[in-house]
């Protein structure tokens, strides 16, 4: 009996047995997890870190079993917090239930490296079972594996499986039940004297430094991982560092290198385990080589890469549009339908329709893009192309702290930051992932397009022609990325204290994607977005609605009406105006309604706030109307057009092509201050607005998603950081351009 086993006896009626799936990335672990649990899955975060904790129920005749799918890892090294999760679960730390059984999912095509994790985990002394996955691929590669012999050597059951078609799943389920009744343990490797002595010394030292409950397996991590997270409770870091140094000196004096001794010993152990187990029938010309020669070719590979990325981008930008329109139309229909029931209570009607339903629609409208992007990501990951794409692109992004895998999130950001930020999960390195998430909102998403088109079409095109206008639009799409990459460099160089991981990529074999997995992943991500980020987006929507609606005093409407009649009477007899207003469908009535809406927005809390803070935006050349427009677009930048429509008395039903709106903007003049009588929209102001929109985080949904993917601290920091940056850039552009008189036309 292994002295370190701490197996909980699972009596019927108490908690179900916990089975943990462990293995390297790309071994088909998730496929086996899906096969074992079906749709009875839950995703949550591990305590304290945003690492997915995927768990599910496996229902068998023998009872219910709780299965947890641990993040794929090559070793138990616990340097980053993401990796720590695996050791935490296996060690039963942070109030987590210790697994009753470990199921290792190994890639049969690369048994040696896969056994490294197994050999390391033997130290934990947990009951173990091995699923030898992708046996079909191993056979195709000319490998013959004697599973029975491997099982005898390891002392634990070895089940051959093929996750993609479900082969061996019944045997695996039966083996799990059996292994829980009669547990088997892995043999631990014999450490040389210098290491055992080092461990004893470290253990005593750590105990006296106030960290009493450290296990033997964890002491090994402290010894080998230089800055292990298990030493966090130890306050006297210097003392601990001395202890580790002392232990390392002991290892060195035995002629071994502390950096690689662990791997060397484990691999030596694995070599003996594998003797006579794997037989290779000579090198087989594998298809991957010829495919790689094409896909990683200097010219063709790069062209294919851009072709694939173009297809992904087009699908987000163009193909998602009809589905998004459908969601918007559905929202409109429901709003109108519900509004019919609430005509008696205007406040409730506005809250339900413009606040809640608009918010729900604002959440659902992102779903088509999220589902499409994760469809492509799943397919590209399952086939093995993502690793190739990262290999091709790494050099372009490495210099600023991102890596080759940042390309897909950043590109997706050009359609919409939400799926882009979620796509950053494919990046294993926490530092590169953090930087990628922070930079994605800078990409020129499709919601920025309307304001560019409106302003360029109204001011640049009439003056300089469509050719220049086209170039300006093209240039605007690079403002964000042009600022983001140097910013990423600065962040990484001076601010981010997270340690970068080396960018080490395994180039997996090419495989056919499994539809079942792809659909599962789309469903998972979509559900997660709606449940986790959706609630926050809805809350934002209701808050902004309230700020734009209240105080909504009746006197505002009466005053606006009187004013409107007075203005109209200048053109024709007052009686004619009043007569026209009798008919609610007349053009005059509609104009009055728009006029009243404009008065309400001006008198709303947000309108008053806009007027108060206008001096802040004055150095960028913004008047109070632009300021209110900018402020009201913080929850979603695309509403700027509708808000401007309301502010300029045209109603919310305008779009970026509206000639009425364009004419009003061209004629708009300052009504107060030093620039009284001058046009508001001069060229410097137009560019200041566009650059502001290019750099500002005017998207509540993105803030919510960043908060869910990282935390609220980063979400807040990136919101204020981007807003400040946008303000500085807008002011700089306005002030610089103002010095060039020709631009002030």
């Amino acid at each position, binding site marked *: 009996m292994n002295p370190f086993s701490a197996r909980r006896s699972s009596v019927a009626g108490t908690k179900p047995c916990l089975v943990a799936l462990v293995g390297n990335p790309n071994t088909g672990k998730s496929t086996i997890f899906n096969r074992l649990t079906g749709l009875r899955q839950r995703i949550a975060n591990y305590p304290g870190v945003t690492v997915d904790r995927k768990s599910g129920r496996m229902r068998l005749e023998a009872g219910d079993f709780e299965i947890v799918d641990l993040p794929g890892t090559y070793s138990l*090294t616990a340097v980053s917090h993401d990796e720590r999760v695996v050791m935490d679960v296996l060690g039963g730390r942070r109030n987590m239930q210790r697994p009753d059984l470990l199921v290792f999912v190994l890639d049969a095509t690369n048994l040696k*490296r896969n056994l490294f994790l197994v050999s390391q985990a033997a130290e934990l002394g947990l009951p173990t079972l091995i699923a030898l996955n992708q046996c079909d691929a191993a056979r195709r590669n000319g490998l013959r594996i004697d599973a029975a012999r491997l099982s005898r050597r390891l002392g634990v059951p070895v089940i051959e499986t093929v996750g993609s078609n479900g082969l061996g799943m019944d045997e695996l389920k039966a083996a799990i039940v059996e292994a829980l009744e009669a547990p088997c343990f892995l043999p631990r490797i014999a450490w040389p004297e210098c290491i055992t002595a080092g461990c004893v010394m470290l253990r005593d030292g750590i105990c006296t430094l106030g960290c009493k409950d450290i296990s033997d397996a964890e002491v090994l991590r402290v010894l080998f*991982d230089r800055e292990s997270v298990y030493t966090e409770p130890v306050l006297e870091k210097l003392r601990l560092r001395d202890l580790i140094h002392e232990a390392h000196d002991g290892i060195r004096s035995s002629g071994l290198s502390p*950096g690689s001794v*662990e791997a060397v010993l484990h691999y030596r152990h694995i070599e003996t385990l594998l003797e006579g187990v794997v037989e290779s029938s000579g090198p087989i010309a594998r298809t991957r080589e010829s495919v790689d020669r094409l896909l*990683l070719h200097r010219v063709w590979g790069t062209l294919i890469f851009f072709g694939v990325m173009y297809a992904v981008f087009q699908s987000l930008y163009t193909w998602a549009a009809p589905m998004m329109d459908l969601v918007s139309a559905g929202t409109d229909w429901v709003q109108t339908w519900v509004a019919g029931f609430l005509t008696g209570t205007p406040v409730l009607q506005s809250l339900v329709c413009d606040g809640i339903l608009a918010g729900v629609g604002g959440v659902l409208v992102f779903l088509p893009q999220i589902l499409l992007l994760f469809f492509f990501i799943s397919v590209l990951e399952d086939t093995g192309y993502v690793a190739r794409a990262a290999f091709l692109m790494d*050099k372009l992004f490495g210099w600023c702290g991102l890596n080759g895998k940042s390309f897909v999130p950043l590109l997706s950001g050009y359609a919409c930051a939400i799926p882009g930020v979620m796509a950053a999960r494919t990046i294993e390195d926490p530092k590169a992932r953090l930087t990628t998430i922070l930079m994605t909102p800078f990409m020129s998403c499709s919601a920025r397009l309307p304001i560019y088109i409106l302003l360029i079409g109204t001011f640049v095109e009439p003056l300089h022609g469509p050719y220049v206008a086209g170039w300006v639009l093209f240039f605007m799409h690079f403002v964000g990325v042009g600022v983001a990459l140097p910013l990423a460099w600065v962040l990484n160089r001076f601010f981010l204290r997270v340690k970068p991981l080396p960018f*080490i*990529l395994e180039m997996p074999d090419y495989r056919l994607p499994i539809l079942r997995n792809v659909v599962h992943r789309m469903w998972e991500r979509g559900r997660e977005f709606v449940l986790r980020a959706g609630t926050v987006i809805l809350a934002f929507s209701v808050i902004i609605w309230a700020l734009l609606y209240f105080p909504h005093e009746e006197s505002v409407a009466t005053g606006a009406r009187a004013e409107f009649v007075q203005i109209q009477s200048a053109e024709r007899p007052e009686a004619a105006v009043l007569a026209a207003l009798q008919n609610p469908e007349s053009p005059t009535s509609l104009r009055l309604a728009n006029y009243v809406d404009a008065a309400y927005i001006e008198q709303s809390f947000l309108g008053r706030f806009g007027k108060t803070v206008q001096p802040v935006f004055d150095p960028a050349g913004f008047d109070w109307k632009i300021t209110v427009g900018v402020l009201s677009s913080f929850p979603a930048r695309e509403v700027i057009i509708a808000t401007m429509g309301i502010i300029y008395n045209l109603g919310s039903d305008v779009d970026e092509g509206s000639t009425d709106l364009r004419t009003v903007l061209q004629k708009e003049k300052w009504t107060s201050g030093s620039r009284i009588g001058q046009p508001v929209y001069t060229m410097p102001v137009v560019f200041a607005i566009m650059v502001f929109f290019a750099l500002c985080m005017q998207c509540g949904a993105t803030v919510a998603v960043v908060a869910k993917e990282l935390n609220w601290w980063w979400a807040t920091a990136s919101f204020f950081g981007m807003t400040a940056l946008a303000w500085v850039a807008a002011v700089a552009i306005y002030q610089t351009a103002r010095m060039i008189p020709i631009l002030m036309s």
Partner: protein
Amino acid sequence: MRTLEMLTPGILARIEAIQSDCDRAGRLSSLGFIPGQWVKVIRLAPLGDPLTVEFDGQEISLRRSEARLITLEPAGGAG
């Protein structure tokens, strides 16, 4: 000193040591970059970095900055 970074693609070489005490050494060695292992660079990325190394039937890509940490046994001993 010869490092993996300098290795001509297509040539076999044996790893001598991992030149680093930091946790990058642990990470590289856990993937099988250990002294005595035969390795071969099979490909460079179009922009010259990263590079792909083949050994033990697996292909691993790493950046030049990491390849630099892996020293190789002097040429000539290769069999």
